[in-house]
């Protein structure tokens, strides 16, 4: 415990929130090894909204699982908030990293409010009334009505499941938020609403966000930087405009197809002022 008294809150050069160094991800399947990542490097700074894109099966979700410590690096290292990712899953992980799983992964036996407050309840110290208050605030921060608090996950729509899962991921205000396909399975209206929510939370709470997505609209709306995964490594990393200018067949197909052109139109418009 450091001494009390005035101390400089931030060190001179802030360390990266996520630092991936020469990562190898290998899966052992019957008889042969499948190499997903090979010498992959990636650095994510505090406050960024980093999107990871790539073709199906290129290892985007595996990369996300590596950052979460759910997979083990075969070689290389993954450092998250100054700790090896493998140590993330220990007690109190919810205060360091929040994860929004693709299908929400809500605990089906709990109500919405219990789901949101679960990490706080597991700490074992806070009285039930306080946990309820905190969960209620988070519930409304993600744009849900207090009346939804006592529903079961099975009774929620897809958009509501994502919002509850987001509230659950944020309940302990972790500095790092990971999103796996946040808008998949949502209708365009809910998807737009969810994107707006993510943008405002990113700004208000000063979160560092890492997102895996296929949805080009979401990608261009939110990302401050984009990392393209292909050929088992990051082939391009930079602001959306920089990445689109990158000369690589995959980048070309992915961003400059008809869908990409339409979605990228947002980049040419003046930024929305709110």
């Amino acid at each position, binding site marked *: *415990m*450091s001494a*009390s008294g*005035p*101390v400089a*809150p931030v*060190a001179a050069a802030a360390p990266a929130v996520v630092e991936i160094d020469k990562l190898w991800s290998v899966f052992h399947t019957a008889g042969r090894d499948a190499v997903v990542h090979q010498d992959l490097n990636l650095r994510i700074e505090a406050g960024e909204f980093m999107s990871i894109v790539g073709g199906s099966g290129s290892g985007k979700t595996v990369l996300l699982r590596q950052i979460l410590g759910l997979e083990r690096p075969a070689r290389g290292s993954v450092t998250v908030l100054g700790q090896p990712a493998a140590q993330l899953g220990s007690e*109190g992980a919810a*205060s360091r990293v929040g994860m929004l799983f693709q299908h929400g992964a809500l*605990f*089906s*036996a709990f109500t919405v409010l219990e789901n949101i407050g679960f990490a*706080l309840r597991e*700490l*074992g*110290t*806070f009285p039930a*009334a*306080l946990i*309820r*208050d*905190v969960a*209620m*605030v*988070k*519930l*409304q*921060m993600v744009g849900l009505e*207090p009346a939804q608090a006592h529903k*079961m*996950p*099975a009774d929620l729509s897809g958009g509501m499941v994502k919002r509850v899962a987001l509230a659950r991921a944020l*309940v*302990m*205000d972790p500095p790092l938020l990971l999103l796996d396909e946040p808008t998949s399975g949502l209708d365009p209206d809910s998807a737009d609403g969810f994107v707006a929510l993510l943008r405002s939370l990113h700004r*208000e709470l000063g979160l560092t966000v890492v997102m895996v997505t296929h949805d080009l609209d979401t990608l261009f709306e939110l990302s401050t930087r984009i990392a393209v995964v292909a050929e088992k490594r990051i082939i391009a990393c930079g602001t959306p405009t920089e990445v689109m200018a990158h000369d690589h067949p995959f980048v070309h197909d992915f961003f400059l197809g008809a869908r990409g052109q339409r979605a990228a139109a947002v980049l040419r418009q003046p930024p929305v002022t709110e």
Partner: protein
Amino acid sequence: MTPDAPRIERISAPAGTGFRLSGDWSAARLAEPANWASLQSGLALGAAGQALDVKWDLRDLQRLDHTGAQVLWNAWGRQWPRQLLIEPAQRAMLSRVEQYALPPPVARRTSAWQLFLALGALVWLLIDHLRDATRLLGQLLLDTLRLLRAPAKGPWRDVSGHLFSIGATALPITALLGFLIGVVLAYLMSLQLRQFGADSFIVNILGLSVIRELGPVLAAILIAGRSGSTITAQIGVMRVTEELDAMRVMGIAKGYRLVLPRAIAMALAMPLLTVWTSLAALLGGMLAADLTMGVTPAYFFASLPRAVQVSNLTLAMGKSVVFGVLIALIGCHYGLRVKPNTESLGQGTTASVVTSIAMVILVDAVFALVFKDVGI
């Protein structure tokens, strides 16, 4: 650099007393029992009377998250103190809590009327179970007729798969338990019989009890626990993953493809397992009788047909078929009633096993009453 533990200090400035907060007021640090306990006394002091009149200084806080803000907000009685020294970011955090804070819910008391309603709901649940069970049984009869009309188109592949998993893979465990029960029974009875010099009656007692009662019931209870739970879990997971809905959309009858094969496999496997379990129990009993009383296996074999009429075996087989179909139907019944969540799946599986074991014993008692004049 680890931030300091959350702290609250009383300050006495010339302008008046107040409180100064410092350290890391985030959920993880607040939840450390020592921190939480020390803060409670400080906050209680602040909240005791004039929380709003004293000065609150938040400028030394290293971190304040929503949980910390909520703790403060509650200590302030859910309103802003008049004298507050605060950073803009902290004010934003507290404003968010203020915006979304709700009054605590009013605790509802259960009245007699609600208890009465709960009782009514229980009755409806029972009726619902009975209706579902009747429907399942009726559907099974209809499906059996359909199978008899076109046997070639039956789900035989499923039947043989279930026959293997319910019957063949249960052989070792049923044999072991049957053998042990046989040994224990014969040993205990030999102690009693020897007092009367009625050693040779071990064959009658053991033969009759094992073949007529213990074999079928023991096998049925084991299979109810082993395969009844499997059936419920399999069908329940199919509900959770929407496989049942997918089958329905494709026009595949779940009764014909899920219930019928399991019922047939159970009806075939149960009598065979009963014979197998009874044989193991008789073997165990025979060995124990030989060792404790010197009743030779040769004598055992010779006198068993005289002691136990063949009708007992027929009765046991008949009972086993009924037990098998019963276990399969109860397993399917609870499996089909599972709702798409994990808790319901667990409850369904438990209820399935408990109900099928209870029903096996109940039906066995009915058989004992109805056939009390047969084979004895």
